[in-house]
């Protein structure tokens, strides 16, 4: 975004500092750019307006002020941007990184039915996006009743929706419990993931595992801290 007026650099500097504006304020001293794109008022000032220019330089939207206090609302501008650019509102992004593209460090806890009876479980999982539809990473899980510690990993397919801030996940789990009762644990999980910021998400999951020939069903609820993917 670029803001353009006939102001001097000094006036623009004061204005930008006073309102902590993160975008550049450009000085159109001879009003040549204003004259070409919005217009010039008879008192020698820029005619206020908003012009949306696509990457190929095509002007896809132009709105000019028709009264002194005529302003486009933020919602109106977002709507115009969506219409002009074929987007769908502002995704939850932070420095160009959408929540969907981030590494997640998840902590989930819950309970369910294990071979030995009712149990409580907790999982710590680090998931990295391999692609938009796939996340993979190591996992450590803790089961109060049957497997105090199990180490392994998870691979999940995810189906993003609601502007990539939510996803349905279907994952596979493979783990090994190194302490008694030792053994392999394999299972499947179905989860609903929701990011409420680029840094934090919530997830609700159901998991069915086989351990030592018996079945364990658990439900968990958890939170994830998300980090920028370094690649």
């Amino acid at each position: 975004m670029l803001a353009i007026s006939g102001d001097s650099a000094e006036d623009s500097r004061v204005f930008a500092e006073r309102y902590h504006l993160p975008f550049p304020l450009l000085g159109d001293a001879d009003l040549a750019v204003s004259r070409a794109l919005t217009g010039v008022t008879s008192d020698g000032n820029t005619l206020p307006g908003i012009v949306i220019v696509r990457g190929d330089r095509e002007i896809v939207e132009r709105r000019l002020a028709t009264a002194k206090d005529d302003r486009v609302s933020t919602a109106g501008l977002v709507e115009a941007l969506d219409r002009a650019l074929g987007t769908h509102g502002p995704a939850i992004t932070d420095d160009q990184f959408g929540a969907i593209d981030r590494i997640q460090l998840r902590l989930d806890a819950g309970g369910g039915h294990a071979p030995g009876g009712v149990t409580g479980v907790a999982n710590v999982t680090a998931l990295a996006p391999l692609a938009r539809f796939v996340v993979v990473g190591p996992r450590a899980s803790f089961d109060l009743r049957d497997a105090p510690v199990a180490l392994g990993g998870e691979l999940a397919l995810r189906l993003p929706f609601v502007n990539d801030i939510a996803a349905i996940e279907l994952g596979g789990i493979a783990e090994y419990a190194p302490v008694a009762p030792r053994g392999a644990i394999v299972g499947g999980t179905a989860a609903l993931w929701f990011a409420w910021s680029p840094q934090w998400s919530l997830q609700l999951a159901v998991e069915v595992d086989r351990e030592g020939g018996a079945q364990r069903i658990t439900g968990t609820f958890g939170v994830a801290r998300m980090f920028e993917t370094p690649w």
Partner: protein
Amino acid sequence: MRSALLLASSGCLTALHVTTPAPTVAEAPAFALPAQDGHRVALADELAHGPVVLVFYRGFW
């Protein structure tokens, strides 16, 4: 009714001292203008990163 509308619109125009809006053009002309910190910003450089929203305002007055 029509004259009332005309009167109202002329009132708006008078309030803003509009002369003539710029003609509608399909393509933005190339330009480079100085930012408040002195460095020149070229539209072409900004467009290389994607679409650009140009906000024209009356300034600090």
